């Protein structure tokens, strides 16, 4: 794993000229964790997507530095692992195929043993040859963790980390989280108090009100 540092400054996102949030700044060094809290529709997911550079902000910048060098936005994905409800897997492939296909597309080539290890970590080793379409939503969530963890990313982004997970799954997420916070960064977007208290810091986002209008609907939290 490479040591990364993340700086977000003055982030703001508008949808159709309607502000979702504005002026969000934070800085995270290796070993730091951040919780993003806020009501449904306040733009937690939007913020996470912007940090992952999946979406460009209306204003502000996100910079990721690795060993002191700034990573250009289009290459940021290399240092990011993400788990989110809106991130979907290739359902026509098996768990193992999902891992190996994405691995190849990432330009890396892990060994079969490493895939096995990852699948064992998320307790999917017995279903590795089943297509994802037949998986329960909890199992899909586990597979997403395996995908996010495969490259040992410097920056882990978790949106609603416990969605669909059972007690076992939640403790697995916990241990991943502890493992990551040793020298990596974690950002968690969550509604749950339990997740937020694990983190060093919490930022609360809320839509800048304009004449009492409710924040825009549609963009999932």
């Amino acid at each position, binding site marked *: 794993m490479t040591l990364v540092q993340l700086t977000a400054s003055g982030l703001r996102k508008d949808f159709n000229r309607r502000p979702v949030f504005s002026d969000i700044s934070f800085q995270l060094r290796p070993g730091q964790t951040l919780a993003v809290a806020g009501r449904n529709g306040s733009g937690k997911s939007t913020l996470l997507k912007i940090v992952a550079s999946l979406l460009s902000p209306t204003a502000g910048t996100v910079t990721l530095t690795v060993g002191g060098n700034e990573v250009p936005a289009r290459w940021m*994905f290399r240092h990011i692992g993400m788990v989110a409800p809106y991130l979907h*897997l*290739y359902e026509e492939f098996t768990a193992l195929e999902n891992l190996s*296909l*994405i691995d190849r597309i990432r*330009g890396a080539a892990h060994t079969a043993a490493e895939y096995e290890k990852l699948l064992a970590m998320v307790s999917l080793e017995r279903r590795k040859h089943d297509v994802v379409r037949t998986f329960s939503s909890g199992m899909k969530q586990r597979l997403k963790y395996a995908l996010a963890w495969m490259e040992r990313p410097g920056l882990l982004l978790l949106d609603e980390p416990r969605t669909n997970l059972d007690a076992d799954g939640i403790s697995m997420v916990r241990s991943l989280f502890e493992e990551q916070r040793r020298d990596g960064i974690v950002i968690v977007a969550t509604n749950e108090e339990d997740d937020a208290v694990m983190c060093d810091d919490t930022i609360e986002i809320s839509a800048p009100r304009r004449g009492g209008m409710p924040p825009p609907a549609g963009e999932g939290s």
Partner: protein
Amino acid sequence: MKKGGFLGVTAAVFRKDTSSEIRTRYALNALFLFTVTTLSIILFSFQSSTVPVQVHAGLLWVLIFFAAMSGLSRTFITEEDRGTILLLKLSTISTPVYYGKLLFNVLLLIALTAILTVLYAMVLPGFIVLSVPTLCISLFLGTVGLASASTIIGALIAKANARGTLYPVLSFPIVLPLLLTVIRATTIAMEQEGWDAAMDEYRVLISYILAINAASYLVFEYIWKD
């Protein structure tokens, strides 16, 4: 691209799309049904009447065009619809994704064109070709050009609503110069001997392919982001 290399990643995207297509047959089923229905409609309407050569050339390309319209946008639309595009975005940059999908579309359309042409020649005896090399070269260049244009428009359309109707509407003015040229080249193949009779047309087709691919390369980055 350091690790894996650009070509390796492009190949990986292509492989992913191919095996996905083999598993799901989203495009293949649509294309197969399309071919069967349109060919039989043409067969019924022509019966045994003889038609001029140009009509055959035109008709063949109308078939290929609409086949492309029914099949080639899938590769981007399915990613967008199923939300897997985010997984791709988190895994690589725009260019290899574009070229992987372009390669997939080109090969799919080449295969389809080959099958369509053979079927067409078998079913309609009026389709007589004097120069098979000219026909092959024109079909090849035309198909590559059509697939290139369809791929970038497909990427565009995947982000919009009302895609089904919009796809041919957006594509038609873009591919019209290509279609007109390739129809002419096909007509030449049916009328004249020698593979170089349609040299001018080849030049136009090749420069069209180069131009549309250069433009796609430059703009795809912007479609990819957001």
